[in-house]
């Protein structure tokens, strides 16, 4: 392609200078226009292959042929890699379905102009939907600072510095929301979903539909008020699009899902998202009593301690005198009372959280573009809808913590290979968590998630761990406790004290041994032609199920102590997580590793 050498004039140079400082987007836009004018809408070397391609995502896009370009572009290209004029039009314009006219000169004969799908943006109301939750989450993130600020300065009237501090905390969030709204563009083109975002720090992501693990629609309070919806798409090996398609109108969301389905080449399946289809009877529906019970059994000691710590901190700052009195009047009964209070508070808190989070939990079957699937809907304020197709299920697990098991319930989670941001923002693989399942329905739910499972894991007996594993655990406990007992006995200097100390340690040893025996007896494994089942946990029983055709790699490992006892551990990897078989004799472990290779 022949390109005019646009003479780099002074104005251009100036702009390049400013450009490196920031505010890329407007300048880039102007600059583009400027160049075009200068060249009378001729071939403009806006994108030259080497310099403008930054990541693989961009490479998915049809490339424009390379051409020589003015020097100043070489200078700026590392900073503004993907800038194209039409990316930066105001939202409303970008919603127009017609390709902006001035983009035409960009299209080379090699690619048909019609193939260029228009980019779409977020709904303008996304500002409203995102701003308040984001502000709240920022404030929550700064809570220690805010507490210190509120209580630390006493009851003084607001000062100008306070406003400044608040500004300092809030402005970045507001700015990023604005940038998000004005820069996010997405489209389905060439069978792939492309999403671009960012002002200074641009990112472009391309998702192939057949890699999509699951799609969820999320609506918080503001989404529901404004009739918008957030679409989250999770793929294997990539992080989710959480927070990216944060506010689409329902029509846009539906159009997007339909396009994605069409791109998967299964138009018939588009009917799956059709609201007119008669809803399947739910597999499971949870009411308030179950959810309350779930919350009560989920409340932990850790939360109680945290609540106590925060409470005492606030008291110390607001009412120092009373705290002193309290400390003086502290008696064992009062301390126990306080502890009970804190535990009760934590239970209440987690019960309420469970009610809000899982309100109206409904699990039902659903046809997805890739065959049968499951759909879960839940949430009081933030409504979540998750749909996943069964052949993307990697791991199904059930936990029955002691209390919940006494009540006759367990919790099931179904994992696919996608990544969702879990608590603490760490990736967690659980896509669908079914909070409360009656014990005699756990097996049924396992079969719903993995139809190849032809038996009820709660009705069959598992193979035990190797007996030598118990011997090993017992030896480890004895080796752990004996030196401590001896050391304490000697340190106590003989006499009654050392006998008592040694007895205490021996009591501990007895507990360790009991634990080892219980733990060992709880372990179990089962390999059938289709699935692998694992069991563990004496007090908090857990059961895991994976389909053998989802196995990725298997690793057999043996430490020095294992070798002493002739034991080995087998770890099975599926996409997104892994499970470990109980200790087995080396030969058995190798045989299972070989056997697992055969199927799948």
């Amino acid at each position, binding site marked *: 392609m022949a390109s005019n050498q646009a003479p780099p004039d002074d104005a251009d140079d100036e702009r390049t200078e400013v450009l490196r400082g920031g505010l890329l987007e407007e300048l880039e836009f102007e600059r583009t226009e400027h160049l075009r004018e200068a060249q009378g809408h001729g071939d403009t070397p806006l994108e030259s292959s080497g310099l403008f391609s930054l990541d693989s995502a961009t490479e998915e896009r049809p490339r424009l042929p390379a051409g020589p370009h003015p020097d100043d572009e070489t200078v700026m290209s590392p900073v503004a890699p993907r800038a194209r004029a039409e990316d930066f039009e105001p939202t409303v314009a970008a919603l127009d379905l017609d390709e902006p006219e001035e983009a035409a000169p960009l299209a080379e004969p090699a690619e048909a102009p019609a193939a260029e799908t228009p980019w779409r943006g977020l709904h303008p109301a996304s500002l409203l939907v995102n701003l308040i939750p984001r502000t709240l989450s920022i404030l929550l993130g700064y809570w220690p600072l805010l507490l210190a600020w509120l209580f630390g300065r006493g009851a003084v009237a607001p000062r100008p510095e306070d406003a400044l501090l608040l500004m300092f905390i809030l402005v970045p969030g507001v700015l990023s929301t604005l940038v998000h709204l004005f820069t996010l563009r997405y489209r389905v083109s060439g069978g792939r979903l492309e999403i671009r975002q960012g002002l200074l720090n641009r990112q472009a992501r391309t998702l192939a539909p057949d890699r999509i693990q699951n799609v969820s629609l999320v609506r918080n309070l503001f989404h529901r008020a404004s009739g918008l919806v957030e679409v989250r798409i999770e793929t294997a090996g990539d992080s989710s699009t959480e927070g990216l398609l944060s506010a689409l109108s329902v029509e846009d969301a539906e159009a997007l899902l339909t396009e994605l389905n069409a791109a998967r080449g299964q138009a018939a399946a588009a009917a799956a998202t059709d609201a007119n289809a008669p809803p399947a009877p739910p597999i499971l529906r949870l009411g308030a009593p179950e959810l309350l019970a779930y919350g009560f059994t989920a409340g932990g000691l850790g939360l109680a301690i945290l609540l106590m710590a925060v409470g005492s901190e606030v008291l110390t700052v607001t009412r120092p005198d009373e705290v002193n009195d309290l400390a003086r009047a502290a008696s064992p009964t009062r301390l126990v009372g306080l502890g009970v209070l804190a535990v009760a508070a934590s239970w209440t808190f987690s019960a309420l959280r469970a009610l809000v989070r899982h309100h109206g939990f409904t699990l039902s079957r659903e046809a997805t573009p890739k065959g049968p699937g499951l759909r879960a809907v839940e949430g009081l304020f933030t409504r979540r809808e998750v749909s996943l197709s069964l052949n993307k299920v990697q791991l199904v697990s059930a936990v029955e913590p002691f209390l919940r098991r006494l009540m006759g319930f367990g919790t099931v989670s179904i994992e696919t290979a996608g990544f969702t941001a879990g608590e603490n923002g760490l990736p967690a693989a659980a896509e669908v968590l079914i909070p409360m399942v009656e014990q005699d329905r756990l097996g049924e739910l396992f079969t719903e998630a993995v139809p190849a499972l032809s038996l009820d894991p709660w009705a069959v007996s598992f193979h035990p761990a190797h007996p030598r594993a118990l011997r090993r655990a017992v030896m480890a406990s004895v080796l752990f406790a004996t030196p401590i007992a001896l050391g304490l006995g000697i340190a106590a200097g003989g006499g009654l004290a050392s006998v008592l100390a040694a007895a205490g340690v021996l009591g501990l040893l007895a507990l360790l041994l009991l634990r080892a025996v219980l733990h060992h007896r709880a372990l179990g494994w089962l390999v059938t032609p289709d699935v692998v089942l694992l069991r563990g946990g004496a007090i908090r029983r857990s059961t895991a199920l994976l389909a053998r055709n989802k196995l990725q*790699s298997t690793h057999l*490992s043996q430490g020095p102590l294992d070798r002493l006892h002739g034991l080995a551990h087998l770890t099975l990897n599926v996409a997104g997580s892994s499970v470990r078989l109980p200790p087995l004799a080396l030969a058995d472990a190798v045989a299972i590793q070989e056997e697992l290779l055969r199927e*799948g």
Partner: protein
Amino acid sequence: MELRRLDPRVIWLWRAQAMSRMFFFWGPICVGLGVLAAQGSDWRVGVLIGASLALMLLVLSLLWPALDFDRFGFELREHDLLVQRGVLFRRRSSIPLRRIQHVDTHQGPIERLFGLSTVAVYTAAGMSADGSIPGLPTAEAEAIRDELARRGGDDGV
């Protein structure tokens, strides 16, 4: 079953790598510990402690690669790639060929001196290589990579 072995040159490669770790990481630590031990006592004590630590590590980094080489075996079997290794902690990994997402070979600066390459095999299970075979002559590494790439791979998730 007799597994395929690495190129024996890998022993010297690993020794060289251990030496460079020694120089940049363990060496300074030994010196630091020596200086620390010399504080408040005779300087000779410090030298003794630092030197004996360094000597121990040196002997270990000369011996260990040979043991590691002895324990390393791999085989490209009908359905999987089998990699077995480990002196104290032994590991036997089986990567089904059809699960392979991609394979690559790479060569660090010291490896280049020895003319050796590493083959790394990735599945959908993890971010890091699920199986890797270090210390192969570059031509052989490339042959294995191509063989794995040819025989492996489906959607797999």
